[in-house]
């Protein structure tokens, strides 16, 4: 089998997981341990010096978590993965490896509200300066490039929904600027879109959403695309310079096309500490095995709900790229041909008050701040996830006062529609 390329569903079940070498357990065991016994001092020294592969301490590597890392890297078509405690921790890990104080990165203005906050405030405290560009205008990324630009950050399908990013156009801008393109692929998952095939150099995920898929575990992932030359420009000293943390190792030279993931692990995760629990890794892995089936059903249900809402008298507009008349439909056909995801927004004619009423009236939908659960979820961004933003930022992010966001679950679609029908009535 080794010389045939296995398909996506096979990888979703098998990548990274042979039988457990110690016991023969076929499901990946939960190695719920902090640390690992050394055979002898020579092996210990080789592990600490990065000369041998193996586990020392669960903050850095863990065999359960490693299966998840290899699984997602394989599904994304990357060279290596690094699992961390959350999607936010993944973003921290990536930029910690790329940025020095005073450096800049360019980010799309259509992002998850939590990312906008993280970039605008917490990262500014590190001296990492975000410069905003318009997702719908790739030229605005080029216009934002300066001597200090170190990366470009976008979401493939942008939260709170409905927006499809032209990855190839923005990748061209990144290549011209000589900086890596980082794509948050949380909303699409590699089942719908594989950003590395469209020019991304790094992919990040909140595994908390569709990849885990059951609303039970936080997690994040960094995937190394293996494509970027970290040495050529001299702008990425974490990768291209001798590292005092490891007696002068040069990470890119030593680890080649998976050097970025190694740097995020041994320089970032080791010192920043946002490790994933092996138990969470196990739960997320169980979710990944059914990712193709779940995403297909999520998309099928979402399209049916979007079409129904589109004809509803209380609804001003529906923004779902799967709808034929949607402005992003063409981009969706290119980047997410199997479906436009399961998270989208619609606007109520009754504005802010109608949005609050809708989230207060649902019975089957859960009113909460998450997406990508088996359960259908609803939120009114203006009063919750995006409330810290200015009105201008809210509108730019697609989270104006009349906007309701749905994450369509795997229930019977008739029941999903019936619940919305009663919540929007009157």
């Amino acid at each position, binding site marked *: 089998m*080794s*010389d045939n390329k296995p398909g996506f569903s096979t990888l979703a079940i098998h990548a*990274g997981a042979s039988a457990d070498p110690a016991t023969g357990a076929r499901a990946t065991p939960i190695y719920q341990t902090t640390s*690992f016994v050394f*055979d002898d001092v020579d092996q210990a020294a080789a592990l600490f010096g990065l*000369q041998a*592969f193996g586990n020392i301490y669960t903050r850095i590597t863990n065999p359960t978590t490693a299966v998840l890392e290899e699984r997602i*890297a394989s599904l994304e078509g990357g*060279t290596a*993965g690094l699992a961390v405690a959350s999607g936010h921790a993944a973003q921290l890990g990536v930029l910690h490896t790329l940025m020095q104080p005073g450096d800049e990165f360019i980010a799309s203005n259509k992002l998850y509200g939590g990312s906008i906050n993280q970039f605008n405030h917490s990262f500014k405290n590190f001296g990492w300066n975000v410069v905003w560009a318009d997702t719908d205008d790739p030229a605005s990324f080029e216009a934002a490039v300066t001597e200090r630009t170190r990366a470009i950050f976008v979401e493939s399908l942008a939260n709170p929904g409905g927006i499809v990013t032209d990855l190839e156009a923005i990748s061209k801008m990144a290549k011209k600027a000589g900086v890596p393109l980082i794509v948050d692929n949380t909303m699409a998952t590699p089942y719908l879109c594989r950003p590395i095939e469209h020019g991304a150099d790094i992919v990040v995920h909140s595994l908390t959403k569709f990849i885990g898929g059951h609303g039970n575990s936080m997690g994040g992932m960094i995937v190394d695309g293996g494509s970027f030359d970290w040495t050529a420009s001299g702008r990425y000293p974490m990768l291209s310079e001798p590292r005092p943390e490891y007696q002068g190792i040069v990470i890119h030279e030593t680890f080649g096309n998976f050097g970025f993931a190694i740097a995020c692990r041994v320089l970032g995760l080791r010192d920043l500490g946002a490790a994933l629990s092996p138990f969470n890794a196990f739960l997320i892995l169980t979710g990944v095995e059914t990712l193709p089936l779940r995403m297909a059903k999520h998309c099928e249900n979402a399209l049916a709900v979007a079409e129904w809402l589109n004809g509803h008298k209380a609804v001003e507009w529906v923004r779902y790229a799967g709808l034929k008349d949607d402005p992003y439909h063409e981009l969706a056909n290119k980047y997410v041909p199997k479906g436009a995801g399961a998270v989208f927004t619609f606007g109520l004619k009754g504005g802010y008050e109608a949005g609050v009423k809708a989230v207060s009236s649902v019975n089957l939908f859960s009113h909460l701040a998450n997406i990508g659960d088996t359960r259908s979820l609803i939120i009114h961004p203006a009063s919750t996830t995006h409330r810290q933003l200015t009105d201008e930022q809210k509108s730019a992010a697609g989270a104006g006062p009349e906007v309701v966001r749905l994450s369509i679950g795997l229930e019977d679609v008739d029941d999903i529609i019936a619940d919305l029908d009663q919540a929007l009535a009157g």
Partner: protein
Amino acid sequence: MNHDDYPDAYIRSILDEVKTIAVVGASANRVRPSYFVLTYLLSKGYDAIPVNPGRAGKPIAGAMTYASMADIDRPIDMVDIFRNSEAAAGVVHEALELDPLPKVIWMQLGVRNDEAAALAEAAGVRVVMDRCPKIEYARLCGEIGWAGVSSGVISSRKPAMREGYQRFGIAAGRRD
């Protein structure tokens, strides 16, 4: 051999078969990639022999260093080249003068010389270029997954365990 894309079976058969490996350009500097590869190959039970004229007569990681491949007192199964692509040609010429001939000439990640490779293949020597035997061994035995690296290998079988807790090997004759 198509040197753009090696089948796993080709790499596996080489790493399964060779025992004596001359590491040409091995460094005694503990943070150099050549030192990493030398110590890893030694830990997997290969008779890895550093070749470095500046270091001849002194050991690297416990293995005695030779000034040239011709000075080595035992037959060499594989020559692993830590030189740049241009300099690799000279090493290949030198290797093809050996009696007996090596079975394999391996050029490290980033090293590729198609003319030299053709010469070696014409002499019946198998060639691998732009790959690292440490990475390939760790990929095929499964150890590389501990670092989150995608191995590209799908297998429902038990990894081949070696002595100690965290040491895998490449099982002889195994075909996944």
